[in-house]
């Protein structure tokens, strides 16, 4: 019995290693297929639109609430030191450095990653991907390259949008409580943000977008046969990308802090 279990576990580990290797190969294929002539502009634009459109309502809501609630909850601590005037900069730092890219990406992973996983997964199991292949159209180019690029472009834009919405939520809260006017709020907020913050936020958002696109495509492209495979692919698109997003977050924070 114990032996069987060992075999089972070692099989699972083998599978993980093979999966990881396949994933790396997938990323390598992406970069080898990536060239200007392989981009189908209408498809890229369409995908950007889809990704943006799909995530926008939820991101707007979450960003706004995050900014508002974060401000509300931070106030008592700052009040103790009579430092409520620091609220705008505190919120701005938190929003730009961490919350906006992270919140955006986690929501996008849920909305977009699962969608790409399911879409490509069902194309895989119904042989639509094979159909592209036999008609001399490179399905990797058409489906993967454009989707990954679209996610890589759209998530950073959405992240900055989330930051803007979050700061708006925060401003409304501060305006209602401290009657700070908009100009003062903006000056105070942006004073505390430097280039490194913006740069690292941008890098993070780009990496997050790339991850969401890549993981979603990989899960879908390698979906197992049957409807069960589609569900699994959608699920993997979300879970794996959120996991990788956290790893990237930790890594980039370390690098950024060492540069400060």
């Amino acid at each position, binding site marked *: 019995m114990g032996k069987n279990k060992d075999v089972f576990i070692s099989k699972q580990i083998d599978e993980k290693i093979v999966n990881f290797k396949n994933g790396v190969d997938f990323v390598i294929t992406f970069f080898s297929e990536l060239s200007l002539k392989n981009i189908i502009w209408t498809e890229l634009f369409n995908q950007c639109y889809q990704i943006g459109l799909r995530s926008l309502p939820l991101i707007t809501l979450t960003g706004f609430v995050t900014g508002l609630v974060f401000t509300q909850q931070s106030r008592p601590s700052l009040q103790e030191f009579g430092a409520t005037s620091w609220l705008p900069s505190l919120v701005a730092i938190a929003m730009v450095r961490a919350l906006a890219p992270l919140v955006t990406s986690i929501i996008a992973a849920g909305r977009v990653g699962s969608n790409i996983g399911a879409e490509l997964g069902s*194309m895989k199991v119904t042989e*639509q991907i094979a*159909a592209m*292949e036999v*008609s001399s*159209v490179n399905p990797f180019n058409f489906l993967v390259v454009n989707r990954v690029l679209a996610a890589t472009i759209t998530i950073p834009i959405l992240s900055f949008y989330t930051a803007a919405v979050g700061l708006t939520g925060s401003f409304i809260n501060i305006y209602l409580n401290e009657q700070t006017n908009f100009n003062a709020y903006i000056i105070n907020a942006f004073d505390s943000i430097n280039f490194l913050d913006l740069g690292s936020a941008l890098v993070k958002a780009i990496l997050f977008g790339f991850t969401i696109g890549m993981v979603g495509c990989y899960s879908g492209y390698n979906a197992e046969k049957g409807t069960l495979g589609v569900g699994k692919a959608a699920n993997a698109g979300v879970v794996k990308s959120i996991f990788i997003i956290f790893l990237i977050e930790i890594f980039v924070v370390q690098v950024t802090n060492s540069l400060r």
Partner: protein
Amino acid sequence: MKENVLRIRNLYKSFGDLDVLKGVDLDLNQSENLVVLGKSGTGKSVLIKIISGLITADSGEVNVLGFDMNTITKEDLIFLRLKVGFCFQNSALYDSMTIGENIEFPLKYALKTISRQEIEKRTDRVLEAVGLRQTKNQMPAELSGGQRKRIGIARTIVMNPELILYDEPTAGLDPITCVEINNLILEVKEEYQASSIIITHDLTCAKQTGDRVALLLEGSFQKEGTFSEVFNSHAENKVKQFYDYNFMEQETIKI
């Protein structure tokens, strides 16, 4: 003059422990309709997937329109596939595109130099040929199984292929629609002078569309010839069984 479109010798393919194809030999002549018959799971789909390069063979010679599939380069494969049409068992229409876009797809993205006008013209012509012009702006989900099969065929012939691989074109369709599809296959042969492999386990389809019939049983071709040659009264047991089962089923239903 008759020349070989396809030449397969001693083809083997297995998946893990499962030996699917065990020494397949096959020739296809110019402008010939060859029907491949066989039970479910004997590897008929695998065979044509090997011919189109979707699956690679374990061993054996596979020569398609002069290209050796074992050593073919990526560029040659792209070129070859422009001349080989593949009609999938489940039609494999692109769900997210309209019928018109489905048919335009290979023209637009595989033949990059073609003009918009030409795309329109060829799309309309094949839609006309399969009798489904009115569905151009519909989505695949709105079509019936038989209509989807016909669109699948339209999407294939729009490329003017020299070799067409039909994977069970009549499976799961009612008898009347089956006859329509069979006629369509014959019309395509007339009009495009293409050579075809038609995979089926439907004997009516085999009889109607095949110039020649080959029976795939237990991993290799057991019998080959015209329909009546294969299923004559002296046929071996296994062949007879296949025939009897097929028609017995139909007889039972008639009663």
